[in-house]
């Protein structure tokens, strides 16, 4: 991706006197301008039923976000404009013209927002209680450019086409899809404080999804697996991929005949994936700086620095500078939320959020928080089009008293017996979660659900006998809860660390994140029926299962 001329155009635009913003009498002085250029080049294809069903190559997507602030750091008005119509080629003049056409309207928006903010201050003192924007020392940085491996695309087309054909032989499988994405991203950030930052990112992504229907009630059963990495070498090999597909098929077949888990509250164990998503939803989002002072937020942890908010063995860190993580399998994997500078030109910093259960810090963008006089810590993030706010990056949970897997299971069984329950629930694999930070609730969407039998008993649904410690696959449920109750119900965490890379959506758009955590056990969590559709299965046999025989 060529960017030299575009970068020069932005720098020249900023320093060109002729381009300085035209102020009318009585308007506020502009004090800050920033330009965030995001270029994304994507190769993507989707395979299903042994064929490529969708593809796009060298697809270019460029966005430019222009931000202008008027007034001063103490009280300002901010205006921003984003365009997706930006030169794909590295064209100096075209870029200059575009900057010329966008900056004055952004300034105009900033003036309007300044007046609106003054108007808001008539109804409430709130906008005046804190500074509007933090100043930071400008940084000049240019990433060492990585070369993407284009040969990978051809090779993976063949592997995934063949892989998707493996679902054909199984009449129970409704669909099997494998999607490959190679994404190269370039971020150029320049501001009038003197910052000039060029960062590059190459991401390799593989999404695998297969589905079936349960004959008993028509529940749509979905199993997914994904590999998101900044290193192509961390992608599975062909044989490994085939094994995963075979596991997905087998698991779906087992799920079809698994009994439906009834809703209720149970002792629960989360695998590392679900523990990561839990911390992301119930703690991470609630520690994002902007959420500490908006009127409509639940303020779960507002003003709680120095207070105990979790069991004393819980430690939580968000570290965008962390590139690699070695999990329980001994393999070092790239962390998907890694970056060096945030989308406001601030150097990324490791932030200790919880230490031994006590809250230490919030995640901060350049928007200061009332009563928390701390400089920004490099978490102002956006998708290139929305206004940045504080977001998570690589969120890592660790226990000061890690327990073995056997001990965690013992803990779960002990809880079951204490609560007179035949079994506890183990959740494995995750399709993500979501949380409402204003109403204080969350949901998690685990992929596999097992009962762990706490005593020898007969399952009344299936008539099968289970012995203490045995696991039984069930289906049809997900998790609902409120943050503090769940945190306080956490009894222990393991040491089987694993990363869970993903994308997180919030007000500032979708950003890349990564979680790292071990398994965890809870005394009680509410389990509710999931929202999968329940429809009639296709009564006809799948053609791929009889056409081959006919031929």
């Amino acid at each position, binding site marked *: 991706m060529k960017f030299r001329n575009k970068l020069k155009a932005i720098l020249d635009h900023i320093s060109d006197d002729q381009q300085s913003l035209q102020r009318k009498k009585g308007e506020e002085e502009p004090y800050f301008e920033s330009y965030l250029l995001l270029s994304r080049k994507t190769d993507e294809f989707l395979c299903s039923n042994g064929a490529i069903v969708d593809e796009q190559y060298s697809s270019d997507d460029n966005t430019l976000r222009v931000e202008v602030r008027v007034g001063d750091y103490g009280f300002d008005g901010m205006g921003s404009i984003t365009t997706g119509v930006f030169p794909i080629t590295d064209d100096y003049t075209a870029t200059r013209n575009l900057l010329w056409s966008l900056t004055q309207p952004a300034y105009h928006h900033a003036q309007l927002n300044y007046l609106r903010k003054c108007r808001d201050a008539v*109804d409430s*003192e709130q906008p005046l*209680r804190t500074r509007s924007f933090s100043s930071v020392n400008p940084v000049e940085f240019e990433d060492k450019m990585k070369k993407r491996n284009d040969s990978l695309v051809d090779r993976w087309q063949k592997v995934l086409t063949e892989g998707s054909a493996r679902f054909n032989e199984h009449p129970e499988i409704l669909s099997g899809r494998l999607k490959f994405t190679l994404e190269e991203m370039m971020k150029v950030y320049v501001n009038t404080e003197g910052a000039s930052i060029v960062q590059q990112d190459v991401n390799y992504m593989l999404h695998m999804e297969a589905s079936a229907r349960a004959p008993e009630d028509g529940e749509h059963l979905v199993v997914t697996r994904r590999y998101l990495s900044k290193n192509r070498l961390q992608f599975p090999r062909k044989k490994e991929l085939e094994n995963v597909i075979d596991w997905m098929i087998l698991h779906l077949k087992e799920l079809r005949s698994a009994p439906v888990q009834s*809703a209720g*509250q149970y002792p629960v164990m989360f695998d590392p994936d679900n523990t990561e998503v839990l911390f992301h939803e119930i703690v991470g989002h609630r520690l994002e700086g902007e959420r500490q002072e908006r009127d409509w937020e639940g303020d*779960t942890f507002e003003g709680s620095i120095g207070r105990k908010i979790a069991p004393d063995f819980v430690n939580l860190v968000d570290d965008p500078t962390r590139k690699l993580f070695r999990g329980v399998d001994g393999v070092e994997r790239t962390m998907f939320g890694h970056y060096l500078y945030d989308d406001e030109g601030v150097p990324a910093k490791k932030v200790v959020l919880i230490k031994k259960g006590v809250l230490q810090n919030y995640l901060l963008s350049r928007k200061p928080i009332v009563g928390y006089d701390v400089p920004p810590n490099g978490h102002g993030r956006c998708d290139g089009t929305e206004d940045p706010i504080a977001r998570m990056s690589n969120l890592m949970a660790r226990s000061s008293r890690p327990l073995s897997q056997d001990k965690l299971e013992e803990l779960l069984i002990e809880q079951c017996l204490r609560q007179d329950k035949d079994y506890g629930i183990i959740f494995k694999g995750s399709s993500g979660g979501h949380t409402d930070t204003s*109403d204080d*609730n969350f949901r998690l969407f685990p992929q596999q659900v097992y009962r762990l039998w706490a005593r020898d008993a007969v399952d009344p649904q299936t008539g099968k006998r289970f012995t203490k410690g045995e696991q039984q696959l069930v289906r049809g449920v997900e998790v609902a*809860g409120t943050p503090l*109750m769940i945190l306080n119900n956490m009894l222990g965490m393991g040491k089987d660390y694993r990363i869970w890379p993903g994308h997180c959506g919030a007000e500032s758009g979708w950003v890349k994140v990564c979680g790292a955590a071990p398994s965890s056990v809870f005394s009680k969590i509410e389990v509710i029926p999931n929202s999968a559709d329940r429809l009639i299965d296709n009564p006809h046999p799948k053609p791929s299962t009889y056409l081959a025989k006919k031929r």
Partner: protein
Amino acid sequence: MADKKGLEGIMSAMHAEIERSMSRLRMPHAKEIVPQYVSYCLTTNETLSIDSDLGCSGSERKKDAYIEVEVRVGREGDITSGHYRDMLGFYDSPSQDALRVVLWRFTDDIFKEAFKDYLRRKERRMETHTHLKEEQVHFHTAASVRHVEGRKQAGISEGDWEAIARECTALFRQHPHINTSGFEMDVELETRILVNSDGSEIKTSQRFYSIDLDASAIAVSGDSRKIENVIEVGRQFYVTHPSDLPTRQEVVKATEDVLEDMASLLEAPVQKPCDRPVIGDPEFSAQLLYTILGELLISRCSYLHYLEDRGLKKGDDIFPGFISVVDLPDRKTFTQPDGNRIHLNGHSRYDAQGIPAARIDIIRDGKVAGFPCTREYMAGLELPNGRARFSDDLVVPGVTNLFIRSSRTALDDDLKEQLIAECESKGYDYGFFLEGALSSEFDLEENCYMMTPRMAYRVWARDAVDEETGEKFSRGDMQLVSDVQAVGNPKMTLSYLKMTGEDFTAVVPSEVERKFFQESSGYFQGGDCSIISPSTYFSRMEVKKENYSKTRPPLLPHPLHDKKRR
């Protein structure tokens, strides 16, 4: 035909239109799909409203009437429904002919809507798993009934109540921190005439009296999070019999209590979100249990089929074993803990579909034993039991007089000791006592309720100093705090219910807002039922910040307290 007036004329017009619709109302392209059930309910209301503020008052009398039409359309054994409600353009004894024209128009509209709904249900049935859905489209038949009640009188003096209102609201004038205030009294005389295609004729007459005393103030000092919060305090009285209305002295006392509560709340420290043992007084407990139970029961009969699996089945363990819940529509009165005998709001003989209201054991020893039902058949539920209510444009099940019964009770002091012991075992400085209920809502998507108590107090479990105020507290002391809302998931919350008080009290619940994808999707019944509940003790409950609206306080001082005033 002679144009008869009065009850006879109304019923005669209804019968005539029902007969015409049942025998001849057809879509030209699908004549085999016919009305299976038609009902008309004419409700007339006479309302007296008394408003007062700052010692001044005014009153208004209003009359209105509306028609609710239910038409169920389909082939036999395969029926769907429609329901319609609209105001009438006339009130005083509509003539038979005028009423027939109105019924003809509404029936035509609702027949067409019901017909489309029938086809929509057929579509859904084709793609939905048969095992789950096939039985859910039938409609129970019923025998005809005839019941006619005489018209009730308001039984109050308008002049006396205006004087009381003025006396109370004059108290608000002197208080510099009160920003808005008011007294509103509504007296509603409601007459309902129901005629349906079963041949039933039901005329009922009811009275509703409501008094709302409200005041708001803007916080100007204390914690920065609290400044500019608009704090609202109020007292409400909802009764169905004039003898249950508060006396003049009681209303004045309630006004003084509002002022006292407001002064205390403005000074109270802000409570941070936490998870602690909680005692709820009967009013808080009634609203909480009603919110949770109502939601779980109505989800089972949900028109939002996406959610119906979240509801309960008979035999499900939901409450602790010491709790039973029974709904008693025939109970007219209840003796409150203070010895006052009051009329219950849920007393009723017949529901909106002409079915006699019967006793329902809803929870027996902690397990689900029965459901409030309409005439719509739901798999696994019993016969209709007289709980159908018109709600917006639907017919939904409701409750009447819901009695919470407990076999594990203790006196107030013992409940408090339990709470303190739990705090001590967990190392908490305090638990909470939550009093009254301002509002409650249930988020269907998130399976989560939220409830705002009228007042929230910390109950200190040991001698300690409140680090925010510097105040010293001893074991058992109560401290008022602000910004408290209870939040939780229903089954999880009920699993922490450990004991109840002995102070069974009849409470009229406020309606529960039901949210779906964060948007309001309507309200679950409030006002026309009673909940009889004791105090409850939960070993754990999560409390969050209440989201107050904010506004800048007045720029000039209160005119009667301005030292520089001219």
